[in-house]
């Protein structure tokens, strides 16, 4: 895209096309011959990673849309059916949901890189502003995508975010009605969000084309921030940048695959496995992690309108960055003070993100206010001031000089290290404080599960025993509506044969009809039928159980969790601990105690449970020793029952878990080999240039 190309294809057919549409010349000049600075580091591969992620999101999204139903009554179920019944549907959904997070990881790295190396400075202002527009579009797309599964967090996130617009004076309320297409978030809202969620990625792709165009006019910035002056300063894009980008993408995919195959729910919220309910607000509404810093800014300002303005201002301010930071030296490599403040700013953003996920009370509110001031001070005070008072170190004459010199002295930025340590320390201290405060509610004990870890498999015996416990005890009140009898015979399940599953099904009576006479009739269950629910509807379930409807158990182990808190959620990433749900379910089943501790009052019709939030549960103690007989000689104790039925419910929540972990291992072997090959090819290609 940098001027007319003199490229001529050798193949006569391509020549024929080239004379009429010079597309090969365009590709050649933009992605083959294009001169790229030879001193680029790996932070520059994130452009390619982002293009790759955008392509992957569009591809997986288009396929998911073929199976998704945008209707408030059906959306939640259709997403579950994608995961359970569509071929590799679980993979598509995980790739798309985790892909959104990975897209934001990459875009944040890309933005911080631009900030550090001054990539927004003259002549790249338009390039930078186009980037901010892409980021805003990504946020809108990500938000609308999160609404589509129509879980509790989807619904209430949509309510809170659309209500932000009601803060606008005079026209706010009508804007919100326009967004909703009704009087509250509902089916019309879901439909328009689906439409826009499908449209916006293509708008992003369009702006990305402009972004790349602007990049290829101004040329890439580089770590030294000096423009290429001669041939010696650059290398051709292909093969140098292409192979390096491919290595970068391969490494990024390792991280991506870690989430897809081993901890797909780590970045999500358990509440989103509960279908949307307009009558119940979850106790703690949190947006997806990539909005958290801005959510923290919103909440730290006590006035509604001012909070909304500050939140949007925090993003819009980025557009003015080229004029706020008027220092002539681009790269922070040569700006000793700017470098320190850059890292402080990174820490401020991360801490704001942490605060965005905390309840808005006590120390968190104060900290949020201090950090919000820091955030804006960086742009409005620090950067303009530094441009005037800072004495930058001399920049090299040219890129080739910089490559040859390769500064050997890597001085540790003492100040910022000290600040980072101090902030991390205070964070740790405050989390210990809050842990002490919440000691009243007991944390479920961690169990050893056969299905945990990267090679975890379900214990077939436990699944079969768990099914028996469910059928004989739980099924009298709780449904299992996403599980069909045929699932019992599927690989990775309890290991029954097709005939056994059919026999199991035939013990149930299923209502069908109407027949030719117009009457409903009963017939024996077939493998394709789903487990019948004990109550005809939620109101009946509520009425029969003292006002509390027993939840459907299909997804219960994914829909329940407990707060892990700092620093555990960081360790969990490495240990792949994903079993909060099963631990909680098993703990509640065993947490009934006859003796109510002092200071706890249990209302009439409720029972004391040690692990249930609030301790007053409507479900009476469901299991007692010897209640269900086991044929395989396993102990018939409450502990064993709980463990077995929880294992069974983990399988019902994710029937393809074994396939996920198995495929994950294969993908990892492939990616590691692929990344290794790319690395050595890259070394060979660049050998002459370093």
């Amino acid at each position, binding site marked *: 895209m940098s001027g007319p190309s003199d490229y001529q294809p050798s193949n006569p057919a391509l020549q024929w096309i080239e004379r009429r549409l010079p597309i090969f010349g365009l590709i050649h000049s933009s992605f083959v011959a294009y001169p790229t600075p030879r001193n680029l580091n790996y932070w520059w591969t994130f452009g390619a990673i982002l293009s790759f992620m955008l392509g992957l999101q569009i591809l997986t999204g288009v396929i998911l849309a073929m199976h998704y139903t945008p209707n408030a009554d059906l959306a939640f179920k259709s997403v579950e059916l994608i995961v359970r019944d569509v071929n590799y549907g679980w993979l598509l959904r995980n790739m798309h949901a985790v892909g959104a997070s990975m897209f934001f990881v990459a875009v944040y790295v890309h933005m911080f890189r631009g900030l550090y190396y001054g990539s927004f400075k003259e002549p790249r202002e338009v390039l930078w502003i186009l980037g901010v527009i892409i980021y805003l579009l990504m946020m809108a797309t990500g938000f609308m995508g999160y609404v589509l599964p129509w879980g509790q967090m989807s619904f209430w996130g949509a309510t809170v975010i659309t209500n932000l617009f009601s803060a606008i004076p005079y026209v706010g309320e009508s804007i919100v009605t326009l967004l909703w297409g009704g*009087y509250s978030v509902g089916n019309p809202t879901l439909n328009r969000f689906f439409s826009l969620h499908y449209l916006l990625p293509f708008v992003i792709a369009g702006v990305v084309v402009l972004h790349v165009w602007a990049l290829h006019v101004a040329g890439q910035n580089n770590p030294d921030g000096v423009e290429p002056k001669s041939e010696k300063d650059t290398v051709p894009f292909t093969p140098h940048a292409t192979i390096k980008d491919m290595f970068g993408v391969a490494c990024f995919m390792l991280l991506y695959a870690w989430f897809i195959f081993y901890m797909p729910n780590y970045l999500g919220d358990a509440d989103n496995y509960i279908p949307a309910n*307009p009558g119940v607000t979850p106790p*703690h509404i949190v947006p997806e992690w990539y909005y958290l810093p801005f959510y923290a800014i919103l909440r730290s300002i006590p006035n509604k309108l001012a909070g909304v303005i500050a939140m949007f201002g925090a993003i819009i301010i980025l557009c003015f960055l080229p004029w706020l930071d008027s220092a002539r030296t681009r790269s922070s490599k040569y700006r000793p003070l700017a470098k320190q403040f850059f890292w402080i700013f990174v820490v401020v953003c991360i801490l704001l993100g942490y605060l965005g996920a905390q309840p808005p009370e006590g120390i968190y509110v104060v900290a949020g206010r201090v950090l919000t001031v820091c955030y804006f001070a960086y742009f409005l005070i620090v950067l303009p001031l530094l441009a005037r008072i800072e004495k930058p170190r001399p920049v090299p004459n040219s890129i080739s000089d910089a490559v040859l010199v390769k500064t050997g002295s890597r001085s540790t930025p003492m100040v910022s290290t000290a600040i980072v340590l101090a902030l991390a320390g205070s964070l740790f201290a405050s989390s210990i404080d809050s842990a002490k405060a919440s000691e009243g509610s007991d944390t479920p004990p961690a169990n050893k599960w056969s299905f945990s870890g990267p090679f975890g498999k379900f214990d077939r015996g436990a699944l079969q025993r768990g099914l028996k416990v469910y059928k004989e005890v739980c099924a009298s009140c709780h449904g299992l509506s996403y599980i069909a009898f045929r699932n019992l015979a599927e690989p990775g399940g309890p290991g029954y044969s097709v005939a056994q599953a059919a026999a199991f099904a035939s013990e149930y009576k299923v209502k069908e009809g109407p027949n030719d006479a117009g009457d409903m009739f009963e017939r024996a269950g077939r493998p394709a039928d789903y487990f019948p629910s004990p109550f005809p509807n939620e109101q009946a379930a509520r009425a029969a159980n003292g006002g509390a409807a027993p939840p459907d158990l299909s997804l219960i182990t994914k829909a329940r969790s407990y707060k892990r808190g700092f620093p555990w959620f960081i360790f969990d990433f490495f240990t792949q601990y994903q079993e909060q749900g099963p631990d909680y379910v098993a703990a509640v089943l065993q947490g009934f105690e006859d003796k109510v501790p002092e200071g706890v009052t249990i209302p009439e019709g409720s029972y004391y449970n040690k692990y249930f939030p609030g301790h007053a549960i409507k479900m009476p103690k469901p299991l007692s020793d010897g209640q269900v007989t086991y044929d395989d000689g396993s102990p018939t104790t409450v502990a064993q029952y709980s463990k077995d039925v929880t294992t069974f419910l983990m399988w019902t929540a994710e029937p393809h878990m074994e396939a996920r972990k198995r495929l994950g291992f294969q993908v990892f072997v492939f990616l590691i080999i692929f990344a290794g090959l790319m690395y050595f090819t890259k070394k060979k290609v660049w050998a002459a240039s370093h």
Partner: protein
Amino acid sequence: MNPDASTIAAGAPIEVDLSPIAVGQDIKVFWRGKPIYISHRTKKQIDEARAVNVASLPDPQSDEARVKSGHEQWLVVIGICTHLGCIPIAHEGSYDGFFCPCHGSQYDSSGRIRQGPAPANLPVPPYQFVSDTKIQIG
């Protein structure tokens, strides 16, 4: 992109029978997709709501202006927090009224904002008494 005809038609007024609601109890009905709390207030709740110095409130409004005269025991409010739209929980908080679990706003027994980030009182929907034990919302 404004609401279509069927959505508007479904938002027509509804009638609610108040006779089953005992003193101190409240029910939640849905109108136009919004939860509407109908509280049968106790004498204590009414007195508390009226004893407040109106000028000291964040959104000054007297309790008399928020209920229908002659039916002071009935409080009818849209149960949507005026901060960011969550549903407050009835009979919670320090003011014998509503407590919003999302960002901690507290409303009193007249549905007026007393504490927290919400800028305004819980709105009173348009309604009138058809008879002593029946109201029409809308």
